């Protein structure tokens, strides 16, 4: 096949974005059909490129080693396929959910543009090209959040833009350092040992990657967006696309661009960020009272597992991290789409107002439950398999603390999903929402597809592990070591699996206790933990955005600016406005005195001046 085929996943959605934008808002059916058809074409492209595996394209672009350079290989082909799959599901879902959105033309345009940029970022084989596509996604993210049309939507959009900008600028810095030390910008030619300056480059690039994935502390816009942005955006960006991209890049940084060694300082950095993200975000998720916001905190917490997995720098851990990425994208998208389905029918996602919807919305309830069990790591779903791999890797690093953090995360993940599922779909039927029925097929179908995928990837884990994951880590195993990830992946009778199951039981106990304490109201099940002494104060501070890097950062920027303005800029202006002017005035007054109105005086000045002029000219002519 022609190498230019590689440009199709980028150009096609970009062109479709323009076409979909130009179709007048009134013509609904044509746009929806066209959007779904294009996403099917994208899926087809994704499949055919995945089967193709190896392809590259390189032409000159800006000179100086900045080339228009694309490369398809097993990893990027896998991510490309995944991206197009999620695009298809979300577009299908949007045909109903976003049907009456007043700015629907923009919506599809941004979604397809984001897809084009994401595909470009995945295929790029030149760092500048990568940053170009990578950072361009920011604008589509920004625009999609504003489509939430809430009063605070734009604020959140700017927040995402500035946090994203911070991460991407740090990535540019990292790329610059890589360029300065290796002299090349071609991605597959870079392989550094992360020490000294290269370590700084590693950290800076990593910030770009985990920032996109939404790890702490670059996560704070996601919970805000959960309320301010359309729910389809949440399923599209933070749940699937950004995770896939961020973890893809992180994996490439740790495996390809740099050589991450087990227990090395850089690996420790990743492990710490991963563990902190898991634990802190899951504690925030636990106490949320809104389904979408609860899900958004899990979208952050789960990134922790992926980063932790990659940070172990052990093949099984890395594989677990990457496998967790794809699994997470599936169940988290499924969960957000179920939340959207509930919102679609009832108009709310507040846990307090919902309850007992399982009878009226059985398919949504089924999809939600499967995805929720998957994210909690219940046997034999996909989440179980990938989490076990991460636990395994974390233990093998020799620092059990990271495995413990991961297990703590597992406890509260399950507890919060018990709470969420219990409050929305089970328990007594709430009286606050009127009687309703199941959502349309194009909403339910994506959810069910994702739920079935969660089961498939769990029960038949051999399929994804051998086709997608194993090839990626194969090159990084010890020579002669054969990796068979699928063997024993579902084994329940190992110590690690035992601990995991114990965690689930603890979660069940916690939920039951909280439910009892809260007067059998499921949405209050997390209150006992919420009200724990020290934790309570921390929760309050966090609700007041005290730990929000953006809020504090913006305050800092404003303060710094005021200082610079007040103590440097204004004093400089003072010199011109006041000092210079008064000196000028002083001399004016002085010279005024020379004008006394007498002829002799003026004559003397004139002759004196003439002599000076002549002297200067003579001097110059010499």
């Amino acid at each position, binding site marked *: 096949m022609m190498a230019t085929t590689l440009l199709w996943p980028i150009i096609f959605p970009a062109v479709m974005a323009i076409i979909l934008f130009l179709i007048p808002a009134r013509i609904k059916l044509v746009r929806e059909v066209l959007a779904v058809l294009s996403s099917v074409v994208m899926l087809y492209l994704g499949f055919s490129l995945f089967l193709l595996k190896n392809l590259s394209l390189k032409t*000159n*672009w*800006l*000179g*100086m080693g900045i080339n228009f350079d694309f490369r398809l290989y097993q990893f990027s082909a896998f991510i490309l396929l995944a991206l197009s799959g999620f695009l298809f599901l979300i577009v299908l879902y949007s045909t109903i959910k976003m049907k009456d959105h007043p700015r629907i033309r923009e919506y599809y345009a941004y979604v397809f543009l984001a897809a084009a*940029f994401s595909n470009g970022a995945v295929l790029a084989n030149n760092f*500048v090209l990568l*940053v*170009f*596509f990578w*950072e*361009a996604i*920011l*604008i589509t993210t920004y625009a999609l959040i504003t489509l939430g049309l809430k009063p605070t939507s*734009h*604020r959140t959009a*700017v927040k995402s*833009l*500035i946090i994203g*900008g*911070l991460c991407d*600028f*740090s990535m*540019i*810095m990292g*790329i*610059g*350092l890589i*360029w*300065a030390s290796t002299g090349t910008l071609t991605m597959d030619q870079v392989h550094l040992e992360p020490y000294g300056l290269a370590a700084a480059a590693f950290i800076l690039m990593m910030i770009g990657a985990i920032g996109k994935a939404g790890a702490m502390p670059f996560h704070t816009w996601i919970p805000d967006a959960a309320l301010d942005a359309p729910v389809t955006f949440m399923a599209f960006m933070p749940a699937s696309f950004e995770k896939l991209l961020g973890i893809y890049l992180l994996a490439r940084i740790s495996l390809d661009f740099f050589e991450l060694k087990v227990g090395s300082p850089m690996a420790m950095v990743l492990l710490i960020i991963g563990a902190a993200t898991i634990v802190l975000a899951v504690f925030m998720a636990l106490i949320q009272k809104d389904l979408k916001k609860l899900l958004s905190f899990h979208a952050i917490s789960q990134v922790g597992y992926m980063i932790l997995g990659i940070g172990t720098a052990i093949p099984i851990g890395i594989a677990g991290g990457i496998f967790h990425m794809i699994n997470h994208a599936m169940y988290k998208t499924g969960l957000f789409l179920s939340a959207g389905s509930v919102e679609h029918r009832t108009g709310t996602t507040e846990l307090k107002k919902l309850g007992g919807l399982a009878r009226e919305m059985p398919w949504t309830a089924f999809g939600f439950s499967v995805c929720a069990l998957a994210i909690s790591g219940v046997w034999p779903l996909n989440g179980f398999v990938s989490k076990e791999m991460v636990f395994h890797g974390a233990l093998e690093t020799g620092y059990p603390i990271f495995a413990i953090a991961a297990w703590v995360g597992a406890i509260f993940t399950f507890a919060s999903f018990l709470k969420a599922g219990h409050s929305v779909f089970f328990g007594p039927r709430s009286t606050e929402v009127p009687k309703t029925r199941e959502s349309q097929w194009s909403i339910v179908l994506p959810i069910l597809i994702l739920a079935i995928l969660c089961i498939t990837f769990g029960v038949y884990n051999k399929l994804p592990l051998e086709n997608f994951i194993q090839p990626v880590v194969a090159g990084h195993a010890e020579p002669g070591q054969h990796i068979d990830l699928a063997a024993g992946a579902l084994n329940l009778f190992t110590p690690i699996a035992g601990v995991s199951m114990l965690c689930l039981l603890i979660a069940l106990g916690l939920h039951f206790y909280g439910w009892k304490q809260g007067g059998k109201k499921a949405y209050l099940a997390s209150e006992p933990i919420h009200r724990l002494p020290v934790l309570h104060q921390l929760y309050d501070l966090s609700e007041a955005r005290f730990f929000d890097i953006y809020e504090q950062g*913006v305050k800092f*920027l*404003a303060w*710094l*600016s*005021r*200082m*610079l*303005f007040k103590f*440097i*800029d204004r004093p*400089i*202006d003072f010199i*011109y*406005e006041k000092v210079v002017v008064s000196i000028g005035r002083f001399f004016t007054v002085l010279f005024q005195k020379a004008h006394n109105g007498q002829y002799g005086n003026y004559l003397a000045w004139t002759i004196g001046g003439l002599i000076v002029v002549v002297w200067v000219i003579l001097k110059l002519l010499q």
Partner: protein
Amino acid sequence: MKVETITQLIIFIPLLGSLLVPLAGAISPKLRSFWSVLIGGITAFLPLTLITQALKGGEILWSKRLALGLDFVLIIDPLSIFMSIVSSFIGFLIIVYSLGYIHHEEHQNEYYLMVVMFIGSMMGLVFSGSLVFIYLFWEIIAIACWRLIGFYRQKDYVLKADKAFLMTFGGAVVMLLGFILIYAQTGTFDLTAMRGVAIPGSAVLLILFGLFSKSATVPLHTWLPDAGVAPTTVTALLHAAVLVKIGVYAYARLFLYTFKIPAAWQQAVIIMAVISSLIAAAGAVVENDIKRILAYSTISQIGYIFLGLSVANPTAVSGSLLYILMHGLAKAGLFLCAGIVIHSTNKRDIREMGGLIRTMPMTAISFLICAFSVIGLPPLGGFFSKLLVIMGAIKANQIWVAALALFTAILTMYYLMRVFSLVFLGELKVSAPEKTPSMVGVVTVLALFSVLAGFFVSYPMKLVQLATTHITWWLR
């Protein structure tokens, strides 16, 4: 036509044509508008015909002997051609926009006279290869600038115009001393005869006064925010097309193309540029007047251009030259959008505006696109210029400078998004319709160009690369 003839036409058509503006105005305002647009159009079109010459690389020198060694020398190389295309094109768009903006004001004869002469002397300065003529055009520009900033004639406005004039003039006089020092050393004003000459730090310092005052770099910058009292078209002209780009252009012409300067001074400029950029960005965060914010933003962006030029490796220099184009397009767009807003609401404090996206959607979207370009977000053009400057700085081992420059980029993002949110979003405080088609059309064109310049960056980049290899000949 010969390249030299075209170049002379580029300079003299607007310079002489501007003098006929009052005559046309005396006949009818329509004729005056037509004449100004015509002259502006020709001046914008002619440099485009030089692109083929630029793509050949190399340079054409032309000179006319005049008395006292004050030869009139023209340098026609990719750098001057690139610069003339950018300036005249943006200048032309601003003339078109003026038709709507200025049409009910007094003194229109003088306005168009000065604007066209402004562009003409810019063309003269760009192609001049002699220190004397650079100084001459430099001061014509200062005078035109002085008249235009004080266009509204209020007492305090005129004072601001005086401030701008005196500061830039003061800088230019000091620069002239530097020129004389160089003359004393080499005995010529002809740049083409002095290539590769090492000049002492004292001359560099004196000349830098001129460059920094014209290009509004800290600590010689405070006249630029104050010059915001001018009509917005003039501000756009000063910021995007002509005035503040003179300093950076002259830097490239004098300190890269012609002279060798001491390494310590090069490092000093690097540091001053990045500090200027940061302090100005801070000013933009603090200010509330939309034009002052944009003015500080210009100072901040000029810092990047100086940074790239003073780093002086091919990456950074080509980034800087590209920056002149990208910043010109985007900043002109921002100012002209601000002009529409100010014109319709009669307000300049962004805290008193709000919700204008509902009544003027095209302006709002153009503003946002141009803002993204200034911030340096892909896929817009500003991304590449900023990226190249910063990558160049890192490659030259200026790691902390690059980090500071990126930090400034975050500040840029912060203040521009603040302006956008306050002016165009939130509740509608002053309802005002969008303005005439010529005004909205121009801002849309500028926004569109910012987008196209991003997607098709390889075309301007080709020219920029040629200019870079040409002026950094000493690297070969």
